[in-house]
């Protein structure tokens, strides 16, 4: 028995977000923690790029609030940062989609910079200003991961014919 494609598509998207959230709170040794990539940002950028008619700002907002709860930050903090990323991606998705992979990586780098800046800004207002240098580490790591994540999500998308 086959599910109708629409429902199957939703399941693939939900599963990818769930995996991203799991990886976000997966325990790492202390030294590795500053290097943790922003998995949820990668998933958000991917779905906003390739399925903008399915994953929009509302979904992003929901995921952001869940992430706030999981990381124990102020409610709305990650949601705001993710919303900005999703909004820019949605605005430019036609251009970014046809970029070669290294230009896409640069675009992800810029989006991650915005994301990190918003988080840093809000945290700074709350007095969490420690580790200012370490904060920029995930920016580069996430951007470097983009080609691989894009390839695997694309395989997944083709395999399950998500559209």
């Amino acid at each position: 028995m086959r599910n109708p494609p629409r429902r199957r598509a939703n399941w693939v998207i939900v599963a990818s977000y769930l995996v991203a959230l799991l990886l976000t709170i997966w325990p790492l040794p202390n030294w590795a923690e500053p290097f943790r990539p922003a998995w949820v940002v990668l998933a958000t950028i991917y779905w906003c790029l390739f399925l903008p008619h399915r994953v929009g700002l509302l979904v992003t907002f929901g995921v952001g609030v869940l992430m706030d709860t999981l990381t124990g930050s102020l409610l709305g903090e990650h949601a705001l940062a993710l919303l900005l990323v999703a909004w820019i991606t949605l605005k430019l998705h036609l251009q970014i989609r046809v970029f070669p992979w290294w230009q896409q990586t640069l675009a992800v780098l810029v989006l991650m910079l915005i994301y990190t800046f918003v988080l840093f800004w809000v945290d700074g207002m709350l007095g969490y200003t420690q580790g200012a240098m370490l904060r920029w580490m995930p920016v580069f790591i996430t951007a470097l991961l983009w080609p691989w994540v894009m390839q695997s999500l694309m395989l997944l998308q083709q395999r399950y014919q998500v559209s």
Partner: protein
Amino acid sequence: MLLLIATCIALMFYDHQRGHLEKIHAALSTLVYPVQAVVNAPYALAGWAQENLATHTALVNENTGLKRQLRIDSVQLQRFAALEQENARLRKLMQAGAKVAGHVVLARLLAVDMDSFRHTVIINKGAHDKVHDGQVLLDAHGIVGQVIRVGPVSSEAALITDPSQAIQVQINRTGLRTLAIGTADVNMLSLPYLPNSADVKRGDLLVSSGLDGRYPPDYPVAVVTVVHRDPAQPFDTVMARPVADLDHGHDVLLYFPHKASPPPAKPEPRTVKRTPGKKSR
């Protein structure tokens, strides 16, 4: 888009004023609890396997070690009981109130990482187990932190090393009181308010003073590791290492203070003679 951004900002604003969004937080924490449980599962499984698949000799060895420790501890406890009685007697002589004790309940940390710039942890006890906001977490060595958000089945706690946390301490050797503030480094607390003339040395034990009204008094907090005295500065640079197992403990104790019993009402002096038909009070 603007509406959503406005929602985010409003959420952040109201969340910052603690207590407005407790219901939403409780609902969300229940929603994400399965995710946390899934992440925790391999570690829970490993712990279970370690307990159940251990060899006989390992268990015997552990048992011997624990018995030895128990003996040492109970000898210490005997002395402690005597001291406690003496202390109570002296306090009575000085007409000071008795110190309020409490009892503890074991809780377990979930093996999940949260924001790496905040030092918060999730414990597996929530409102169902009568956890309340601001409740103190201890472990076998000292003070761990306090609960900052209570969910139905789990709660969030801030370690004493979280940058938003401060704890009133006193130097055990001299009784000098000061504040210890989190530094976002799990091995370090900062004591920024000790003047140059303060009597503080490396190795001094800091215990909670209880003056903040949150942490119970006389529990060990940290050991002074760095004292840097610069005559040009009004304050010393003093760092201390928390004594509690903050980064690899898995069990913590939730501290429930006993309700401070009201001071025993003084028996009224019954000097007034009662005359029938008249109330003397």
